[in-house]
């Protein structure tokens, strides 16, 4: 299916009107993340103007809890995931005025544990997603130095597995999404020298399977969201050229829904999560629609580079390698 930009714009725009559907109800607790995925997808398509900026900003600000963190929807308990999504939306819209920034920083600081890891909320789950959320969010706010960066770097290093990858916590199976989180954290901290980039990039490019798509771990089927987690990590490691780009682009395009949006696999229904990550993957791969590229996305923060420049976030450089090692899976 050829890439149909207008259809994808229409799909994303329509989502907030479908308030009487099963899918809308079962995702009410993650509404704020859904808003981030939809809005970011529209930024990639250059059509962020179709959304109700005032309405979204007002709704997001209502999700801030007295603790400083943000919940997934109004009246919901705060959580690191939704705190990041909220800040990303407000930064995208340049609408941070009136937000309790110190409150956000204190909420995030309060979730850092003595070993450098981060919990998601008061219930104590420790997971590298929250490490990445903390680093990304505080950098967007210009307050990364408010936390103990070194202890987190040491904790991430402890999670390094024998295969060069990272799992959810020390000792657990390597997983592309957690690799993204750990590589992103180290990239933000400018400590990518702490890992063996070649070994990790090798594991990552083995995620490409015969249909051209990427999976999250060995023996799993390909899924469009890994078009982001894997290749953004490879971009951060300076080894995106190890992936067979053409077949990955072809896979993502096959995952488009004829009604608009992108699904996780060819033939499956679209959802806003896979739509955003499919578009982000296409952007990072340099896909052009009728000779026009999608708007760029920065791989570490998953934000438009122009927005990061606007708020003064420093560019991080990837460790470079000029040649592809013999036997690298993407070349087989």
């Amino acid at each position, binding site marked *: 299916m050829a890439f149909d930009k207008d259809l994808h714009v229409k799909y994303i725009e329509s989502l907030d009107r479908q308030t009487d559907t*099963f899918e809308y*109800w*079962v995702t009410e*607790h993650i509404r704020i993340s859904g808003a981030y995925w939809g809005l970011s997808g529209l930024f990639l398509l250059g059509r962020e103007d179709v959304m109700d900026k005032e309405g979204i900003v007002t709704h997001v600000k209502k999700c801030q809890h007295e603790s400083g963190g943000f919940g*997934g929807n109004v009246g*919901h*308990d705060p*959580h690191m995931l939704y705190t990041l999504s909220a800040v990303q939306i407000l930064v995208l819209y340049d609408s941070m005025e009136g937000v309790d920034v110190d409150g956000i920083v204190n909420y995030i600081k309060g979730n850092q544990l003595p070993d450098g890891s981060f919990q998601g909320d008061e*219930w*104590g*789950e420790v997971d590298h997603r929250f490490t990445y959320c903390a680093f990304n969010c505080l950098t967007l706010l210009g307050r990364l130095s408010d936390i103990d960066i070194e202890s987190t770097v040491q904790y991430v290093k402890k999670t390094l597995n*024998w*295969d060069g990858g990272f*799992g*959810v*916590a020390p*000792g*657990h*199976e*390597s*997983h592309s999404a957690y690799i993204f989180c750990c590589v992103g954290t180290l990239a933000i901290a400018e400590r990518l020298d702490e890992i063996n980039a*070649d*070994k990790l990039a*090798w594991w990552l490019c*083995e995620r490409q399977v015969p249909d051209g798509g990427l999976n999250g*771990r*060995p*023996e*799993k089927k390909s899924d469009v969201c890994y078009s982001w987690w894997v290749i953004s990590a490879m971009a951060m490691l300076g080894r995106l050229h190890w992936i067979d780009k053409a077949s990955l682009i072809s896979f993502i395009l096959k995952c488009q829904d004829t009604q608009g949006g992108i699904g996780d696999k060819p033939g499956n229904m679209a959802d806003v999560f896979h739509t955003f990550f499919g578009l982000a993957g296409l952007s990072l791969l340099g896909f052009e629609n009728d000779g026009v590229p999608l708007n760029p996305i920065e791989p570490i923060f998953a934000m438009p580079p122009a927005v990061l420049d606007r708020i003064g976030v420093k560019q991080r450089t990837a460790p470079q390698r000029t040649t592809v*090692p*013999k*036997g690298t*899976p993407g070349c*087989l």
Partner: protein
Amino acid sequence: KATVSVLYCNMDVPLLYADLLRSIHDERVMEISFDPYSGTKEITQNETEDGLVVGVPPEAAKAVMKYIWKEGRDRDEGCVDIMLMLNAEHGPSWAKRGKRLMKEGTGGVSKEERFLRLVLKMNPKSHEGWKYKAWLSRFNMAEATAEHFEADVELSLLCCERHPRNYYAWVHLLELFKNSRHATDERRLAMMKQMRDWVAARPSDHSALSFNASVFASLTCTADIKGQCLADEREALATLMNRRTGHEATWGHLRWVTSCKWSEPYDASPQSSLQFGLKQLIASVPDPTDSVLIKSEKTLEHTWASRFCSWVFRNCPPHLLTSPHTDPNLVRSIESHLEA
């Protein structure tokens, strides 16, 4: 002998809601599952040897969710129970249950464990469900008995079986074996053996093999016992790989087993692993008379064998590749196969 009784014949949603809630709280009910094949909109009840199994058609589930959404999710405690059966990812509902339990204290834990079993059997992949399970284990840690531990192991394995490579179920299982006071070295070694048998029937279960690698790393027994355990792991893997070819999971585990050798004081050479790699490279060269199926299997085996050998060359400490225990002719043979 199973008997089926239809609980009601229409979509009276308040009745659906009440009957689903009754099933959740009925101690005889061992399992509630989505039943997409019933062809009806009725909730069914099957009597089996293990207890009652309740089937919920997707249309009934959607109707009840809509009902909860419209009527308000705070109307009664039953809402939370049903929300989680039908949408186990609803974090706020788990938080409500947790707050309720914290008021009750550990006296309410067994009821909570039963509810979690129902939810996880219906939603074996649910991240929020497993997150709550982990929290419950911490909440009840002081009171948890060996029976609790084994019940947890059994539930985790059931969910791993229902959904292969079920990441969060394996995470929970590994945390049990790393952190529970009931996970002695003897129990860990027995579990590793059980996993070798598990993988023999499921050679693509990479998560199970990864579990064994992590449990091995957590052993605190003597070097001799660890060495024997690793030797058993190698032998089981070799038997499996000779019988079932083309699996990324087994070739991945061979990388781990090979790299474990590199730190051994004696015979750390990758010679035997490379010999196996070359044998498989040669055996997987397609023959013109091969059927389409055989050709496809050989292609997979060749891919993984060549990637394995490349991986060893790139990651093995250089002094081991050039040591007297590593045959340079073997290395050259493999290199020329990889070039070809």
